[in-house]
């Protein structure tokens, strides 16, 4: 027990870094996914292809490899220094934006053509149709898969340990190696579980609020 009390403060410090990474990634990647989603459906071929390639690359390669790229390779080529935290943020935001873009695209495509026709015949502009009619409905559709990704992100933050960022995983690893005692892993696991549990509660609450109307008419 006293051992746990001893290792808890550094673990919690690591947990704070993990949470920061989690929150900053979500706050930036959630909106960034939208322009990529629209880009993938753009009428302009170059825009469409750039967005498709972006999504293809970031979904098609391991997150760990992307971390290495932005932490080791990218600074080398550009001859600049990128510390671990910003490198991790950059990687996570781009990676998650790619996943969100695909989810958003699916959500937008799921909206009935009749909604566009009704908006058109009322004289709504493209922007009014998109942001007043389509996106609010698509949001409901994408909420469950986005929630899923958010929970995956909690666990993915542990990957940042590979570029020596002192988030919770790295901290617990350090303690285990130092003390030859696996307790730190168990405590870290408990903290991750607590995160995902709290997150699930929040997400359920949001989903309940969005379900004031059901998905489709007819």
């Amino acid at each position, binding site marked *: 027990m006293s051992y746990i009390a001893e290792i808890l403060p550094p673990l919690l410090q690591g947990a704070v870094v993990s949470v920061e990474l989690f929150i900053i990634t979500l706050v930036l990647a959630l909106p960034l996914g939208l322009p990529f989603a629209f880009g993938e459906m753009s009428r302009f071929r170059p825009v469409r292809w750039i967005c498709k390639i972006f999504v293809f690359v970031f979904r098609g390669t391991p997150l760990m490899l992307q971390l290495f790229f932005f932490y080791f390779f990218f600074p080398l080529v550009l001859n600049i220094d990128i510390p671990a935290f910003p490198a991790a943020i950059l990687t996570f935001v781009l990676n998650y934006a790619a996943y969100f873009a695909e989810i958003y695209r699916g959500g937008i495509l799921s909206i*009935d053509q*009749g*909604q566009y*026709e*009704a908006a*058109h*015949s*009322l*004289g*709504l*502009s493209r922007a*009014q149709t998109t942001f*007043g*009619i389509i996106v*609010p*409905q698509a949001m*409901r559709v994408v909420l469950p898969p986005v929630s899923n990704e958010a929970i995956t992100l909690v666990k993915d933050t542990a990957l940042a340990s590979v570029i020596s960022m002192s988030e919770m995983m790295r901290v617990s690893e350090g303690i285990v190696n130092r003390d030859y005692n696996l307790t730190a892993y168990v405590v870290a696991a408990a903290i991750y579980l607590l995160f995902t549990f709290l997150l699930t509660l929040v997400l359920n609450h949001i989903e309940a609020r969005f379900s*004031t*109307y*059901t*998905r*489709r*008419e*007819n």
Partner: protein
Amino acid sequence: MSAILEMKNINKYFGDFHALKDIDFSVEEGETVAIIGPSGSGKSTLLRCINCLTRISSGSISLNGTTFVDTPSGGEAKYIPDKALKQVISETGMVFQHFNLFPHMTVLDNVTYAPIKVKKVPKDKAVARAEELLNLVGMLDHKDQYPQMISGGQKQRVAIARGLAMDPTIMLFDEPTSALDPEITGEVLSVMKNLAEQRVTMIVVTHEMGFAREVADRVVFMNQGELTESGTSEQIFTNPQSKRLQDFLSSMIRA
């Protein structure tokens, strides 16, 4: 009387398929016109050309004095710029077979959304007008409900109010009762009949022969992309000229 809608020499191709063939069609102010005809004859296509949901291949259309699409001889149909076109489109109201209400908005918001956003009507005025219209279609009591909480007939009545809220010069109905259970088509038809009596200009694509006969000032019959016959409901139903129309009418009676 002046034509509020004038369509001349309308042709529409979907790829190689000739969906509308040299159609001349006009509607006078205050008139109720029913379009009847077999499935696939081009009724919806014709209606959708009026508010540009479908763009014509050639011909010209004028609505309320504005010619928004015209075709230079030998050329392709040319539409006026988008902004002006939007203006024309917002002068039409459309009611769809599947209602197409906005499910994330209450009944009231469905009706006020476009007037506020497109016509920049102040919110209180838009709400007052919407309540008036919802009252007209008998849906005022349901104004705070979401579309999935009301029946099909009620949805369609809200959709009619939504269309009317833009103060359109013409209302377009594409089989407004076809998705409804037979026992509730009446509530929608009676709202439409009421509008016709108030001289709202309307075009109604319908399979409801009783409605066409009783309410329409004029009935046009379409067949295979052509406007085959046109006349008063009396002429069309009691004295059909073409064989196709005679066959169609007898098939509708049997059905």
